[in-house]
């Protein structure tokens, strides 16, 4: 597992998770507001806000875990070659960036009415 962290797929995995999260957030919000808007959909917080926040927290934790794994892998034998170190460092940064993007974009879900 640690060895595979030097695989270039980790350069895109975090942002791929971000993209999926983004689609579910936007798609889910739009679908719910169209089909079954919450009773207090013009105010916040509603169950939809809580659901979006929960999704964000879970996804952020998942990506944080991956970022931490990459960070810890810096000093393992798998990171001995310059190429491996390059990928691991970059992947750690990109996981972190994905996490920050999720927190920033997800923040309004805690504050704004969902279907206004």
């Amino acid at each position, binding site marked *: 597992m640690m060895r595979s962290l030097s695989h270039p797929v980790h350069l895109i995995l975090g*942002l791929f998770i971000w993209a999926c999260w983004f689609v579910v957030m936007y798609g889910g919000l*739009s679908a719910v507001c169209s089909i079954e808007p919450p009773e207090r959909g013009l105010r916040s917080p509603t169950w939809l806000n809580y659901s979006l926040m929960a999704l964000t927290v879970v996804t952020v934790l998942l990506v944080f875990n991956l970022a931490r794994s990459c960070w810890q892998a810096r000093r393992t034998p798998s990171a001995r070659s*310059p190429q491996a170190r390059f990928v691991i460092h970059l992947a750690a940064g990109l996981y972190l960036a994905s996490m920050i993007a999720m927190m*920033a*974009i997800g923040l*309004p879900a805690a504050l704004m*009415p969902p279907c206004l």
Partner: protein
Amino acid sequence: MTMSRSEQAAAALRQHLEEVWYNPRGWRAFSVVNHSVLGLRSLLTGTCFFIVGGLLAMLMRTQLALPEQELVDAQRYNQAFTMHGTVMMFLFALPALSGLAMYLIPKMIGARDLLFPRLSAFGYYCYLFGGLILLSTLVWGNAPDAGWFMYTPLSDSRFSPGTGADFWLIGITFVEISAISTAVELVVSILRSRAPGMTLRDMPIFCWYILAMALMILFGFPPLILGSLLLELERAAGFVFFAVEGGGDPLLWQHLFWLFGHPEVYILFLPAAGIVSTLIPVFAQRPLIGYSWIVFSIILIGFISFGLWVHHMFTVGIPHLAQAFFSIASMLIAIPTGIQLFAWLATLWAGKVVWRLPMLWIFGFLVIFVCGGLTGVMLALVPFDWQVHDTHFVVAHMHYVLVGGMLFPLIAGLYFWLPHLSGRMPSPLLSRWAFWLTFGGFNLTFLLMHLTGLLGMPRRIYTYPADVGWDELNLLSSIGGFVMALGIAMLIVDIALHFRFGRPAGRNPWNAATLEWAQSMPPPAYNHVSLPVITTRHPLWNHPGLAEEMSEARHGLNDRSGIRETYGTNAVTAEAQERMHLPSNSWLPLGTAFVIALTCCALLASLYWVALATAIGALLLLLRWSWINGAHPDYTPAALDETAYPPVHWRTRSGPGLWGTATALLADGALYLSLIFGWLYLWTVAPQWSAPRSSPLSLPPLLISGVFLGAASLWYWRGVQGLRQGRGKHWAQRCLLTSGLGLLHVLALLYTAMQAELRPTFSSHDSVLFVLVAYLVLHSGLAVIATLLQARRAQLNYVNARQPYEPEVVLLLWKYALASFWTALAAFVLLPLAWSVP
């Protein structure tokens, strides 16, 4: 003076390579597949289209120079701005940058050509013919007039009854085939044909940018291709996707368009930024500061730019919370862009900057692009966007981003690589005048346009009254436009004249570090005489004698094999794995593109039988193309040594075709996902969506069809496993049986569709199902035909256990058909069924 033995051997090798890589002249030049020739043709063709787009801009600026002018009427003005935007975005910006990438990438990564030369040629001709089809509307007088984003319902057959919109939809789709071809080509070439030892860490930074751009094209263009197909079906055949009364929604078009349109801005910016990241270290004479940070930014932009598209739709009535998501994402994208900017500034700060001509254009880029970026952040704020939406402010912002972020770096790059192409230097006097006129004229035009927009002038109006305070600003903008045009004209004259009068440039006149400068100038068709092992980002700085060593054939692939070849290397470790055997000159790309162009013309003329006949002709040509591969004697005229290491790619299991097919299927998958998105969107959002209580596609025959498909795929997969283990005795029979099962699947699918009695001209529900069935039949049918061809190739001994490569490629088609079928069943049949259960 007598030559030493090694010099004689090198000269003989060069002579041999000249013969093998010969580019014919005269009318046979249309059969050339070499990347340098095709890259330059794309650049030249793009420049011609740019001139047309520029003339249209001049027409618009002349019209707007004074109030209440009637130089052109509203109709002509609408055509002018539609064609200006379309030509600049689709026919100039991307093809020119792709052309530059096609020209440079193999040279930079130490390869002899791109990995799919015939695809390069096909892509170029698709671009040329698609562009000519679109441009012909200016001659016929039926140019599209619904804006370059062709919003529905304005572009539907009620409000745009002529053929202009059809020309746009078909012509642009044709051009987009070209973009996707080029993207597949670039992705696979960068990943699989780098010089041995050139790991991702040592790749020239330009290659990172181009890799990201190409991958973005694969995911960004399919939504628009789908949208264009749907809109054309609606216009020509009366299907319903965007018309509210049939259960469609015009906003679906906006989503599909901007899912393409916003990433497109970054698709244009990234290669241009790649030019900047390449040039700045050369003129600062030091390595780029923050290489890893820049790669980080490129990857981040590649993803985040797909999460911004709704900021073009802030005024259409989307919930505020959703707008907030896109607003924040739009602001976040400024961070990776800023990282690059600071890396460039730091490199300039730490280096000893040589102020040569390309740096002037880099300076222009930095100033203009930063301004464009700042107004971009302003527009990301929803309340501000509401105020200036559809005003000249947005037009000004867009031009600051695109001209600053794409045109200026492109010109910097042209001047930088011009000596590489011609062996001569540009004129210092003319080129400086060209820069200052362009820079000054641009700012005069568009800086003031921000103010015109803030004063409330809407975009796309052909004239305005004299008493609203826009007169002086518009006049100055128009003067600026003409000054800029003068600068561009001077630039073109300078470049044209330099081929004759330019001072001769020695090898590597800028003291650059990358491998393209290791060649003689102008470069030979085969690029490098021998291919070195590269373990540094700056091979020519760290190893000054490398260029001579390469031309003296002291590095790899220096034997006289008689075929066009380059190294195939591992995508991650960059170890040499194969000799990639590349095809020679061919008429197939031109012929296929020409027949597809005939199909497009027949569709535009409503000659549907002719369109069907030419489409079948194009399919036959494509099959012929696929036939001349691997061990086919026309592809491999010479007997190749089976024991040679590395082996030729078609004797391995991982040649470029496998990577190319997988990459193309990514784009195909993006198109399919867009269709699913369209289905779900209409289902949940369209105001008059109506669906029957149960799906018209009956479940039992669908399941039977799926079982046949599963059996075919499984049977084929087991056969491929046998080939991997050296068992290929009954391969032809296995292929025949697989094809039979696949055919049964297709027939069952068609039976289901006919039983369903879909009425696509009445409801969007049936329209989407119709397109879905066509998509599935097309993909399964393709797998059946490809497998039948495999059976024949096995009989001819082109495919066997020692040459197991092609079955691996066809296996991907079966896997894709299987995955798309079961996904369709889940999303289009089972999900609605589950939803309707009380």
